[in-house]
């Protein structure tokens, strides 16, 4: 098939960040990682990454420490639910109102 310009007349999106729009705006609760509890940070090893594995929107990086892309994180809370050491808390977006501007 090669390159094609089907985006002209039909709705088309491909796997990748942001093709559904800036979904971070939907978020009510923001996942915040406490890196003092996070396994890869504590052990300084490529270990755990349960949050990265479970995130349905692929917005958490597999890095030390893991980083959440708030531009697209919808705040579903699956990462917080799955984290084996409860390192992720869901915090109300209103709490960040001042620092986000």
């Amino acid at each position: 098939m090669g390159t094609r310009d089907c985006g002209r007349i039909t709705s088309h999106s491909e796997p990748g960040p942001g093709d559904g729009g800036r979904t971070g705006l939907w978020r009510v609760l923001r996942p915040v990682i406490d890196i003092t509890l996070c396994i890869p940070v504590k052990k300084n090893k490529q270990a755990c990454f349960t949050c990265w594995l479970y995130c349905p929107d692929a917005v958490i990086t597999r890095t030390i420490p893991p980083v959440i892309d708030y531009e697209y994180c919808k705040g579903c809370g699956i990462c917080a639910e799955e984290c084996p050491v409860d390192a992720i808390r869901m915090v109300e977006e209103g709490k960040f109102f001042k620092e986000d501007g």
Partner: protein
Amino acid sequence: MHIIESGNVAAAMGVKLSKAQVIAAYPITPQTPLTEKLSEFIESGEMNAEYIPVESEHSALSVCIAAATTGARAFTATSANGLLYMHEQIHWAAGARLPLVMCVVNRGVGAPWTIWNDHQDSISQRDTGWIQLYVNDHQQIIDTVIKAFSLAEEVSIPVMVCYDGYLLSHTYMPFEVPDADKVDAFLPLFKPSYALYSGEPANLNTVTLPDARIDVHGKLAHGYMELRYLLQENLRQSVDVVSKVETKFMDMFGRGGDPFIESYMCEDADFIAVSMGSLSYQLRDVADLLRDENIKVGVAGIRLYRPFPDKVIVEHFQNAAGVVVFEKAISYGFHGPLYSDIKSALYNCKNRPFIHNYTLGLGGREIKTKELFNALKDSCTNGSSQVEKRGWIGLKI
């Protein structure tokens, strides 16, 4: 090859010659013999296609949508309530810009249950974004099916080929079967500009936000409104493509003519009787009888209903004293949809003809030539005093 066959077989032969690759359909009278014939063609090896039996019309069109998305030439057919059961997917196929072809074998809609002919089924799908072609005889059925694929694939818009249940679907008429090699030259293998395949995964037609967005490649991608604007614009532009396809077919097969209006003695006519489908041929007899009484009547059979060829309609009707629209459908709560459309097209003319509307033939009520004659004569004789008139023919109430 010249043969005598039913309208449904003519349609099936058109689909076979068009080398459709996927057929999915659910039986419904009076369409059933069409897809039965196609399944026979496939079973016997005469036709190389996948026949996918389904449990409903909604699924039939869904299968065709999926097939066309992967680049296959797909076909389905239905009638009446089966068409209405597809309704959601009919909109979908147009919005997804898939070049499907569907035969609608026109039948009245329940309730009450009816299996006989009128146009309420396809007319009620008018606003879905499909192209709608209406045909008058068996030759036009087979030819129009072939032309419909060419048209659909050129404009990326699905096409309905509508023909009268029983009056055309189950009657036998002689017609010419186009030569297979020539059809191959007219309609080459379908090569879509885009097809979904496993090597390049994509989401198609998923939730599209109200506003335009930047896609993964950093390009501005259309929002819902832009895509709908393009469907409307491309549909309006497809009027020219209809004309182009007709000319190409005529050059190769020597048959065809005006793809918008099949005209009978309209050149010098004071009054024009208008209809869609096989009724326009019956009206020709009425025109002959009225001309014997020195009433100059012509007949216009509308072949392209959507996109509505309003410019052609204006050119054709603006010099007549009166236009009389005979319709087998109603926009319930108002009046005939074709009548509305013609009236709207003529609005900007300086000397507008009077325009009358007759509702007739619903649920297969027999349309008697004498009744057509009386109604048309009344409109021609008393028309100017009744700028607008709406009536029923054959009503026993």
